């Protein structure tokens, strides 16, 4: 019963501080959005380069892997002497974390495209660039998108740590709540974040289905 009571208290805390909540939620979403956009902009072309120039692949992948193994707090600690306290450092740290899932999926997605399909395209007189743009990327899109989805869900969680360098977001409530033993405040910050992650995941799953399975999709309808 006391857990339920705490939950109700959390709800009360949220309602009483609703304006602050909206500000924190907005900061949280913007952190995720900006760092994801940056990660997509960097990881997709990097994946393309890795597949195109096979010699670079292992170096690119190992940079991505190393980035992933550095503890988030360490990245934050590294980022803030360079970029200062605040939003920028937080975005940089989140960006580093968001990269790997997109990068690995871009590479996997491009590599899984059937070699014969590529050969047919080349044989029909497509240039390397046309093959990439018209055949490889569209065919890899569902896999790349799945990587973005994973990355977004991870980033929603990681963004709580932005608090440590003054990046704002829902982490403000959760981490100061931990320091103050204020459980309702912790819940009021944590549960919306979890809901945000679940919502984004479902939205992305829906889009992924739309772009991924046209062929499969029609067929499943056709065959009942």
């Amino acid at each position, binding site marked *: 019963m006391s857990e339920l009571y705490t939950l109700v208290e959390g709800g009360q805390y949220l309602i009483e501080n609703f304006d602050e909540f909206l500000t924190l939620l907005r900061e949280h979403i913007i952190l995720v959005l900006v760092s994801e956009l940056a990660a997509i902009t960097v990881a997709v072309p990097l994946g393309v380069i890795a597949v195109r120039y096979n010699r670079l692949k292992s170096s690119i992948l190992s940079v991505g892997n190393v980035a992933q193994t550095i503890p988030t707090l360490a990245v934050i600690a590294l980022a803030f002497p360079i970029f200062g306290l605040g939003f920028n450092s937080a975005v940089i740290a989140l960006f580093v974390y968001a990269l790997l899932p997109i990068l690995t999926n871009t590479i996997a997605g491009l590599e899984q495209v059937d070699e014969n*399909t590529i050969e047919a395209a080349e044989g029909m007189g497509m240039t390397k660039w046309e093959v990439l743009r018209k055949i490889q990327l569209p065919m890899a899109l569902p896999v790349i998108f799945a990587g973005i989805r994973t990355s977004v869900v991870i980033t929603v969680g990681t963004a709580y740590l932005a608090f440590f360098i003054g990046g704002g977001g829902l982490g403000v409530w959760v981490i100061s709540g931990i320091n103050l033993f204020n459980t309702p405040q912790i819940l009021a910050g944590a549960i919306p974040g979890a809901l945000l992650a679940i919502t984004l995941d479902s939205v992305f799953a829906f889009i992924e289905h739309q772009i991924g399975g046209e062929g499969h999709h029609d067929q499943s309808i056709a065959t009942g």
Partner: protein
Amino acid sequence: MIKFDNVTKIYADSTVAIRDISFEVAEGTTTVLVGPSGCGKTTTMKLVNRLEDPTEGAVYYDGTNTQEIGVTELRRDIGYVIQEIGLFNHMTVGENVATVPKLKGWDDGQIDDRVDKLLELMALSPEEYRDQYPRELSGGQRQRVGVARALAADPDVLLMDEPFGALDPITRADLQDEFLEIQAEINTTILFVTHSIDEALKMGDKIVIFDVGELVQYDTPRNILENPNSEFVRDFVGEDITLKKLSLINVDEIMRPTNVIEDTTDQDSKTAVTNGGEVMHHLAPGDSLKSALSTFVESDIQSLPVVEDEETIGVIDRDEIYEIYNGG
């Protein structure tokens, strides 16, 4: 149209795929490359559209060394049906067929018309199939789309790498027959690859027989059957040489034409086909002598009428076929 001049291809791992190959594909004819798996057929094909370049010798396209033609330009002028079909699964059938016309910058209306025309040519109703995805099609239908796609921009040359290889025998025979009709209509220069000697004999004006990396015999189907130049070719052609030869000759090549009067009320020609409502044995001008022979055996009649559009246009005697059969 295509000429191989002492061409050798050695891959980077020093595999010798073909050695010192020379042959020609004359304009408007079909030349079939046939040989066991791994003998260099696909490599030969890829040397034409420069997916591979020769190590030694030269390949000529319409009199020009392919090395002097831009790769992209060359490939867009040559239709290519690859062994594994390689349809673009993320595109509809219509978009697949439209690929090369789009690359060549045709306008949309022209492309749409062309796509419909080709789907019709390949016996796929445009209304039904244009907007389907390749996954929804059967193997035979996919192969038809592959051929339609290769023919889309009206290529001067068509390369077909074991196009019917993965199909069941009945679908394969149907597609072969249809394709022969289409070829008679479009008159493209074709280089066709197969590992089946029967398919080679059926489809080719000329046949190139490969042993591993080497050209063994380059000849007409009939000469290959009548004068195999080596043990390898004899083995490759296999049993039933005479029957195979009969399958190369059509009924209309040896029938005695009857003087048909242009008169639709001519009762004689009708009675040749039906007798008291029952269809009597008869032949069609496009039947091979092999199938004619089987009709003779079934019917046990000395001579049979050749019927086209319910009119008797000729007569053929069983003995004439026997003569060819025994004549070697």
